[in-house]
Structure formats: C-alpha cells, structure tokens
C-alpha cells in the first residue's frame, strides 16, 4: 500500500533526524573533563546492580576461556603479555586475569570483572611492545572508565526516549484514524491507510535515530579510550608513535586485502559505525601529541624475541582467514626486521600455494627455496619444496627435497605419504 511519495520524505526525514541525534552532545575530544574519574582498583559491584549482571556474564565467559582449546598455554608468553598489561595499568594489575587466545584477528578486551583477553592476531600485528601496550591501554581505559556500564545506561535512556516517542506516534495515529472513521468521509479508508503508513514511517525514523545516537556514543567511547590508552602508553615510557603506528598499520593491511569490500571498508564514514575511522583515530592521536614515525628497529627486534616461538603457528592461523593478500602483507612487514626468514619465507610460500592465482606457483616455489636456506625453516618447508618442484617438473630436485624431509623428520605422521610422492618422482 505504501506508494513512493511516502518513501522519499521518510528517507529524507530519517537522514535529518539521525544526523541531528548523531551530532548531539559535545565533540568527541572535548567529551571528557580533564580530571576523568577512573574506577577504583578492586571494585566489587553492588549485588543487585546491572553491573553485577555484567560480572556474571563475564565470569561465565572467563570460565569457558579457562578450558578453551584456543587458550594459549605457553607460560612465557602469558607472563610476557601480563607483564605488558601491568606496565600499562599498574593500578589494575592485581585484579586482572590476562589470557592469550589463539584467534587470528586484531582484538583485545577487558571485561568488567577483570578478565582480559588478548588475541594472537593482535600479537602478530603489533610491531613493537609499545603498539601492543597502546592497544591494551585502550582496552584498559574502557575498563577504567566503566564504559560497558555507561553504554548500557545510555542505551537504556535512548531506548526509553524512543519508546515514549513511538507510543506518542502510535497514540496520535490511533486518535487520527478513529476521527477519520467517525467523520464518514467518502475516502476515509484511504486516509486511514495513509495515517497508518505515516505512523509506521515515523516509527522507523525514530528507530534509526535511536540507533545512530547509540553508535555515536560508542564512537565517543572509542575516542576516549584511544586518548587514555595513548596517555598510558606514553606514561609507561613507550614512544609517542605507538598509537598512530598501530592504525597506520591496520589501514595498510586493509588495503592489501584480496577483497574489495575490505579494502573499502575503512574509508566510508557512517553514523552507524561502532568505531571511528582509522584515519580519524590517527588524526585525533596526533592532536594529542602522537607522531607518525616508522617504528624503531631495535624495539621491533626486542618484541620479535618475545613472540618468536609463536610466529609460525600464528601465521598458520592467519592463513585460515583466507585473505592471502593480507597475510602476505603481514609477512612483508615482519620481514623488515631482518630475522626469521626461514619461517617467514615458508609461510610466504604457503600463502601463494593457497591463493593459486596465475603466477603464484613459481612464487611459492621460490619462497620455499629461499626458506630452506635458513636454519629456522620449519621441516615442512622441504616437503612443500619437494611438492612444488614435482609440480614444476623438476623430479631430481623434488626427490632430493623429499629425502631431506624424511631425514629431518623420520617420525613424521605423513611419512608414508611423502614416501609415496618420492616413489613417483623417482619413477619407481
């Protein structure tokens, strides 16, 4: 029943209202007073509060994590990440439980109960300890400012207002429809339909406005956490480039994606985004004294030493995201440090092998060849080198690579498979 004339004003109205609601409130950087109130250490929520409910949810999430297969159990890595947390947030060090999860995405979270998740995808993407510290500092700041609770309260108020408005619209529409029906006008049926449509459109508009208002508040929180996280990083002695560098890195990684939607995702501003654009985050951090500078090579080497043992397994996990363009970008960046070429070249080969674009096969072969020249090459590099050589038709070299694999990994589970491959290249 809704004709097109109703659609145009509806969309225009939605745009105006959402724009007004989204821009309501002070600008992001002025949002918080100079002396921000931080939550006291070892806070316990009141038993019947909304906050206690959030703790209950967080406790359940933590209980699952404690026994999750994706929990990284390397005590050295756990201690290192916990150490970074305590450097950046000495105030909450005592109550925090820091868990490293093997999840190949850039993320970390501080739950209201002191349960902290740091994902391996963040550890792989941070180039220095400072960048890791900046992101952890950002998350700690959400925690320190009780953002989840204030977001809940803000969402509640927003939705209450929207509910009152919706009821008002509905009541007005009912009143109008009854009046029209009583008037007995010849076109009353059409008029009632029109009123109903209009009420529906108005209510859609109220909903969209409320959503935009909620998202705007979320972006304010992100901006505040960026600023406070940056302050924490600087106070802990990390470089002023750590914050901006983190976002510069994510922009570059987005652009390296195999998927157009990912490449474009971070350039479209929207009133419905939960997070600000990365470029806006960089600009805001610069306004806070942040600088854009290539990360210090010594700092990168020190950080690499802390995560070295996990580099291979994290890259393997990253390949499962099936965005080989991004994985190759990460490998390029990791290679700048000038170390770990055996591991990095092997996974470069794996990324090309998995991607299978035209011309990727020789690139994979070249990467495997380079990898086996370094002492840190995973033993699988010889197997894959053998396979790549076999496909390229170089049977003698393939046989040699397979034999090296079997010599280096005599107890490999796939020994029988590689022996079979060896037979085919030897023509037996």
């Amino acid at each position: 029943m809704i004709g097109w004339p109703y659609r145009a004003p509806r969309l225009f109205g939605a745009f105006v209202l959402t724009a007004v609601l989204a821009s309501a409130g002070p600008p992001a950087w002025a949002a918080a007073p100079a002396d921000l109130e931080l939550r006291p250490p070892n806070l316990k929520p009141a038993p019947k509060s909304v906050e206690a409910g959030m703790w209950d949810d967080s406790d359940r999430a933590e209980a699952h994590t404690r026994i999750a297969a994706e929990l990284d159990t390397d005590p050295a890595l756990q201690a290192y990440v916990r150490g970074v947390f305590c450097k950046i947030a000495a105030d909450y060090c005592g109550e925090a439980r820091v868990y490293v999860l093997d999840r190949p995405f850039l993320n970390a979270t501080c739950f209201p109960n002191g349960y902290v998740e740091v994902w391996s995808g963040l550890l792989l993407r941070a180039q220095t300890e400072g960048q890791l510290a900046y992101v952890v500092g950002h998350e700690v700041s959400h925690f320190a400012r009780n953002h989840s609770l204030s977001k809940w309260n803000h969402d509640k108020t927003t939705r209450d207002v929207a509910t009152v408005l919706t009821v008002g619209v509905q009541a007005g529409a009912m009143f109008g429809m009854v009046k029209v029906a009583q008037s007995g006008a010849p076109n009353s049926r059409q008029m009632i339909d029109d009123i109903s449509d209009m009420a529906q459109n108005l209510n859609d508009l109220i909903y969209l406005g409320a959503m935009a208002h909620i998202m705007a508040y979320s972006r304010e929180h992100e901006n505040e956490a960026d600023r406070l996280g940056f302050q924490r990083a600087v106070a802990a002695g990390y470089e002023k480039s750590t914050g901006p560098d983190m976002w510069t890195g994510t922009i570059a990684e987005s652009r390296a994606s195999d998927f157009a939607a990912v490449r474009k995702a971070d350039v479209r501003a929207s009133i419905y985004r939960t997070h600000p654009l990365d470029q806006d985050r960089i600009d805001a951090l610069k306004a806070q004294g942040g600088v854009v500078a290539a990360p210090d090579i010594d700092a990168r080497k020190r950080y690499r030493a802390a995560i070295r043992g996990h580099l291979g397994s994290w890259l393997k996990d990253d390949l499962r995201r099936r965005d080989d363009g991004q994985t190759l970008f990460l490998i390029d960046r990791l290679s700048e440090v000038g170390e770990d070429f055996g591991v990095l070249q092997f996974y470069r080969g794996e990324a090309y092998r998995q991607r299978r674009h035209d011309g990727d096969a020789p690139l994979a072969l070249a990467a495997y060849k380079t990898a086996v020249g370094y002492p840190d090459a995973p033993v699988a590099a010889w197997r894959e080198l053998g396979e790549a050589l076999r496909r390229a038709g170089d049977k003698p070299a393939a046989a040699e690579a397979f034999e090296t694999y079997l010599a280096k990994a005599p107890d490999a589970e796939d020994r029988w498979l590689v022996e079979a491959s060896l037979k085919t290249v030897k023509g037996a």
Partner: protein
Amino acid sequence: MAGCTTTKVKSAAPAMIVQAAPDSKGLLIQPDVQLSLVTASGMHAVRADWSQAAQANLAAAIANDLKGRSHPFEVMDPAASMEGRTGQLLRLNEVVGQSIFIFEYGKPKLPTKKKKFDWTLGEGTQVLRAQTGADYALFVTCRGTYATAGRKLFSFGAMFLLMDVPLGQQKVQASLVDLRTGRLVWFNVATAGSGTDIRTPDGARDLTHSLLKGLPF
C-alpha cells in the same frame, strides 16, 4: 493474563530407549541458570542474585523430586568438573541442547531429524559412566527474563494501542541422557506460568514438578 506452566516433551523412539534397570543409578548435573530483567524499552540486564536464588531453588527441588523416585542418584557440580573429558561432555551437552531448542522447538527443521527425535552426545558419555557409575545423566538449563514494573505498565498501555509488548518469560529445559550410548532419551521444555516464580522455593518446586512429570527414570 495469568497462564499456567506449560511443557513440551520430546522423546526418542521407544526402540531406542533401554529401560532403566530398577537399580540403575542417575547423575544429576546441577542446573545452569541465568535470569535477567527486561526494562520498559526491552533492554536486558542479567541479575546475578536472581540467577543464584533460582539455581539453588531448582537444584533443591530437582534433588527432592529424584529422591521420590526408585533410583539412587549422585549430584555433580559442573563448575568443579569442567576439566578434561567430563568438561568436554558438559559443553557438548550445552550446544546439543541449544540445537534441540532451535530445531525441535523452533521454526527451522533439520531435514534428517524431521520425523523422529534423534539426538546423541556420542558414546564418549561412557567416560562419565565409568567415572560415576551412573547409567543416566539429567541436565537442566534455565534462561529467563522478568519484566520491570515499567515494562508491565508499558505492555498494559500498549494493548490499547494494538501494540504487542511481551513481558518476561522463563524457560527450563531438561534432558535425560543414556550414558551407555550417549543418546538423549527424553527432553522437555517447561515455560513458567505467570503465577510460578522460580526465584522462590515454591515456584521452583511447581516448575520442577511440571518439568519432570514424565521423566522415564
């Protein structure tokens, strides 16, 4: 608006059920309960105190119900048993329970499970049997909401405007697992009626009575 507690039982085909021997032992996994409030505009907030009260009440009521039956049974606290194979089985039961809730009680149907109730945790449940000596395990999960006064007022007023504003609802699901085969032999979902408040011992007892009425154990 007052409603009675309703239940909806699903059972495995009789051929799949091995009748419980008179002396076979049961294992009661302590119920997993989480209750929330729902505000006027539909926001949910977990209430830890309600969850704890209902958990204690349901646990006591279920244990009491089982005592009235002929089989011996043992109680297991899942929070203390989340390590190793036992913990894996508890978590497996959790996701299988969620799937049953979706595909047996909801709209979407799995093509292979349209005609009969055919769910299992797998023979790995024998680990639990070896550990506890129980032949059957009873799992109970409860999720629910209670409307605030504001929500109730809004819902009432909204009726006059032909708007449907749902109030709180509490659902408890129970499953009986044959630990020899892993098969779910019996599954029930009870929805609390408006006069039944599981945060009170009486309400929990009423709901448990409806929930376990046809339990083949």
